[in-house]
């Protein structure tokens, strides 16, 4: 664990920056403006055409994976300090980073196999 701490911290901070810069606009559009009809949701073929581009796929991969590692790192410490679960250190770390890895693998699989 000690040896990969700098890497985990790097993922945390890169993910925090990605989430800060990009999540508000994506969440506002996809989560509120489109479903509430304030703006017209993009049609299927528009999104399908966008996602066909390799750079858009790379963008989506980064957009999903880095913030997941940001969550894993921050949430891990929230559980330790907030809920005083210091004795479950290893279990919490495995569950948090494991979930982030799982989400990352799923994003990679979907973006790689999409046609």
């Amino acid at each position: 664990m000690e040896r990969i701490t700098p890497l985990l911290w790097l993922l945390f901070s890169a993910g925090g920056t990605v989430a800060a810069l990009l999540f508000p606009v994506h969440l506002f559009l996809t989560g509120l403006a489109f479903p509430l009809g304030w703006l017209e949701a993009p049609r299927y073929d528009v999104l399908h055409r966008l996602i066909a581009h390799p750079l858009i796929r790379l963008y989506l991969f980064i957009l999903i994976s880095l913030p997941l590692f940001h969550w894993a790192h921050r949430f891990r410490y929230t559980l330790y300090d907030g809920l005083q679960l210091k004795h479950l250190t290893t279990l919490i770390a495995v569950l948090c980073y494991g979930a982030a890895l799982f989400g990352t693998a799923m994003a990679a699989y979907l973006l790689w196999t999409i046609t």
Partner: protein
Amino acid sequence: MKADPHYTLYHPRWYRRHVSVWWWLQNRSYTAFVLREITSVFVAFFAVVYLWQIRAIAKGPEAYAQFLTRLGTPFFLVLNAVAFLFVLFHAVTWFNLTPKAMVLRLRGKRVADGVVLGLNYAAWVVVSGAVAFVLLRG
């Protein structure tokens, strides 16, 4: 106290004061700290929503239409609204920390915090505009 105490490397257990799980509600800055930590849950929530959307696009037009309908249910609308507020709180606190976390120097002089902050917010506006442009114009 037990007659045969079990010594550890650290201080004995019975000297520890019990701290309530709600310690962070007693002080406003502690509350802000914990709320900031909780933003990560909503960050993860939205990452999963986006993953869900990509899966729907991969499956086809019907799955995408179903995704849009599901996101429009009251349950998801409320969740999205709350998540949006938390994600905004994350963005603002994250940007406000950057001048402290990353000190920029220009010709040996430290760039003022306000400038670094301004650059962050400018980048935020530009990037958000670009994303909205691509999603709305295709």
